[in-house]
């Protein structure tokens, strides 16, 4: 079972898009909308889009089917992208591919956590989890409404 078989929860989405010019615009928009809905501040929204662009540009090269598979999950305080399934060693290769001359590795510089993992029964397929945390610049709307808001 891959994440494509998992029912997305609140403020989550599963995106599978063929590698190439379609991937960046589509993934960026989905990530942007979910991040904005989670009250992500503009600087981290920019970072999240940078990560989305890097994944869109590179992930298809390390997947089994030439497609970019991403499960996006955003909540108040963080946004997480789970990329995969990727070929064996694909997670590390994907991270390494995000290095830019003079800039460094985009994913490592921007993300708070990067973690590669495997799941049993998937023949060595890997998943790359990228988490971006953020501090709210102001209390969320929920907090401002108060717990007893009607």
């Amino acid at each position, binding site marked *: 079972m891959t994440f494509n078989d998992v029912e997305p929860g609140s403020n989550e*989405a*599963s995106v599978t*898009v063929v590698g190439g010019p*379609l991937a960046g615009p589509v993934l960026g928009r989905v990530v942007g909308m*979910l991040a904005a809905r989670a009250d992500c501040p503009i600087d981290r929204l920019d970072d999240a889009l940078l990560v989305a662009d890097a994944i869109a540009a590179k992930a298809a090269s390390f997947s089994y089917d030439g497609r970019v598979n991403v499960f996006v999950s955003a909540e108040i305080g963080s946004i997480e992208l789970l990329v995969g399934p990727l070929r064996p060693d694909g997670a590390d290769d994907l991270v390494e591919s995000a290095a830019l001359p003079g800039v460094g590795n985009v994913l490592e510089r921007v993300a708070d956590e990067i973690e590669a993992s495997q799941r049993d029964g998937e023949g060595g397929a890997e998943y790359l989890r990228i988490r971006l945390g953020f501090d709210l610049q102001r209390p969320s709307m929920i907090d401002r409404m108060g717990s007893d808001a009607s």
Partner: protein
Amino acid sequence: MATDGSRGTPGPASNEVTVTPDLELKLPARAENVAVVRHAFGGFAEALSVDEQTLADIKLAITEACTNVVIHAYDDDEDGALEVDASIDDRRLIVVIRDRGRGIVPRPDSPGLGLGLPLIATLAESLELGKDDAEHTEVRMTFALDEDGGVP
């Protein structure tokens, strides 16, 4: 508005050979996610250089189909999925909106005016209603892209 080809006619789902979609989206069937799908197709169309009028038609039809899923497919207290597939084939955009609920059935308390499917049929080159192999209800729409559109 699409200008060529026959207007959409509701009918049985296509038996054409299934191809792997260029785009697959899966989200909770909630009203707020209709905007996410709409926005994603904005990006999809941007990459395909679709003209603004065609894109507006596509977005409106997709919005109507997704709204149908949100309103009709699941009970109010039931969490369900909204699935969207899109493929490009011979300068045509094929969009499939699918649910895993009861599909589009008459609802006496429906807040809508019942204009959704006729509107989609008007905007799309073709419209098919049916079920996939797993008996999930799906709405299949085909849009003719403009002359400059197509796979980049």
